[in-house]
């Protein structure tokens, strides 16, 4: 496939937003059970607004993907069958609840709504955070399933696609949360950094598995099934257009195979290889500058990862578009 910048930015930016929110709410949940000190409301509030900014940036990027953005509202119609439609519904829902969650923290409007038998009071932000957590996961699943549900794209048609969307979004979000904590609540850097390391490790595992899997795929479609002629040697001599067509632009990344080979180790190093040891170092010596650099490096790696994710997928329609003629 030909990776579209708009979609690369959409999927990576909302991933950071979701991950950052999940990190904040994880801390709040621990604090609810007195496992960690409860932070100032501003910590959660400004953090969730930062997460909101990332999801908004992703949303803006997504509009560049549409030919007719003015009709975007129509895309919520087919939620019964289309994962894209589901994403279109869940993304604003997540953003809305995320906003309420942050606003509730910042405005101090955070009444205890339910008291558990144990005497534990459940605040409005906990309930909002719980809903937003479910929506964040629903959004990860919708985004991942947009790709995983396409059975012709064998590279994507695996649960690993969804798992990796969750893990990679989570990794970048938790890394950002660690940086955020280093600025606003240095005492929490260790906790969030620890989670960032765990999720980045899981991401490394998940992404390596899908790379391993995809390297062993055998394409189901061949030129023989594509045109229905059972002969071992078939060559295309003309594709019906001399100047290229939509089918040659949309489904080929247009880069050399060597570029594809080079970008794979590059993103593995940037997204996992460098951030992991640096995160470990910053566990003992938290430094805002170092964490900032880790976040930027990892995000760059994840951008390259997403580019490769698209470029690697080989669409069966390409069988019909091999020779200009």
């Amino acid at each position, binding site marked *: *496939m030909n990776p579209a910048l708009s979609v690369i930015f959409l999927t990576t930016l909302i991933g950071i937003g979701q991950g950052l929110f999940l990190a904040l709410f994880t801390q709040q949940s621990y604090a609810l059970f007195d496992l960690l000190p409860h932070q100032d409301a501003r910590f959660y509030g400004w953090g969730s607004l930062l997460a909101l900014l990332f999801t908004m940036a992703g949303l803006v990027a997504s509009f560049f*993907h*549409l*030919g*007719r*953005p003015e*009709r*975007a509202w*129509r*895309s*919520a*119609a*087919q939620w019964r*069958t*289309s*994962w*894209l*439609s589901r994403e*279109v519904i869940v993304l604003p829902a997540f953003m809305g609840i995320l906003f309420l969650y942050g606003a509730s923290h910042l405005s101090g409007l955070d009444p205890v709504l339910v008291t558990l038998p144990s005497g534990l009071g459940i605040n409005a932000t906990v309930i909002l955070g719980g809903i937003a957590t479910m929506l964040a996961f629903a959004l990860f699943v919708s985004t991942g399933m*947009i790709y995983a*549900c*396409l*059975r*012709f*794209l064998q590279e994507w048609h695996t649960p690993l696609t969804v798992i990796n969307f969750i893990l990679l979004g989570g990794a970048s979000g938790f890394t950002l949360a660690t940086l955020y904590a280093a600025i606003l609540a240095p005492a929490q850097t260790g906790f969030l950094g620890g989670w960032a390391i765990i999720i980045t490790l899981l991401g490394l595992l998940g992404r390596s598995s899908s790379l391993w899997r995809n390297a062993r795929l055998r394409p*189901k*479609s061949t*030129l023989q*099934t*594509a*045109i*229905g*002629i059972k*002969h071992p*040697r*078939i*060559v*295309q*001599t*003309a*594709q*019906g*257009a*001399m*100047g*290229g*067509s*939509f*089918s040659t632009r*949309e*489904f080929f990344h247009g880069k050399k195979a060597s570029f594809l080979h080079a970008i794979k180790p590059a993103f593995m190093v940037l997204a996992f290889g460098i951030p992991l040891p640096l995160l470990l170092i910053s566990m003992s010596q938290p430094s805002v500058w170092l964490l900032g650099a880790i976040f930027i490096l990892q995000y760059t790696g994840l951008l390259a990862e997403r580019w490769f994710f698209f470029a690697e997928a080989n*669409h*069966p*329609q*390409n069988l*019909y*578009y091999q020779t200009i*003629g």
Partner: protein
Amino acid sequence: MTQLALVIDLNVCVGCHACVTSCKEWNTSGAAGPLCDENPYGADPTGTFLNRVQTFEVGQYPNTETVHFPKSCLHCEDPPCVPVCPTGASYKRKQDGIVLVDYDKCIGCKYCTWACPYGAREIDEKQKVMKKCTLCVDRIYDTSLAEIDRKPSCVKACPTSARLFGDIHDSESAVSQAIRENGGYALMPEWGTHPANHYLPRRKTHLKIHEDELERADNPLKVDGKLPKPSKSEPTLDDVTSW
């Protein structure tokens, strides 16, 4: 249930692109607006086409065969491109099985093209909506056209009659018979899309001779034969005429 479809006979297709040009002509002139082209006369021409003829070489020289292969939307019976569309712009008609795009609803997200294994859809780069073969839905039901013209434009244009059009769910239709009797097959059966369009393979060529080709209807001798013949008992011309 009706499922309209094309049956394309690879045995007689000569790769002349007449179907491509007539498709383009018809569909660029319709109510839905043009099928836009870019740089049509420039160095790098490209444009929107609903039908393309490709060419493949089968076999190893010198035992090769050139196969011309027209390709358009196959109007799959289980079209994967339809459920993925977020707006409902892509749909399959119940009454005749034609898969269509509602150009007024399409947001140009291109997701449907990812879901079509055949590369049968092309975005119109100017109008920014998805275009694909409509089986000339604006011709085949048009009662202002003569009955014989209510066929897809490509079918009308094909000089070798390589394109048949009809209902593949009607077992007595010409298309069903052609599929049945000539080994008609579907493309990429491995994906379970059940394309409605079928292809007829290369096969032994049969010469079809029509009655009026065996005996010329306008044979001058036959025309003479139709002149009144006097009976044997009647006087001949010589009997009644003195020369």
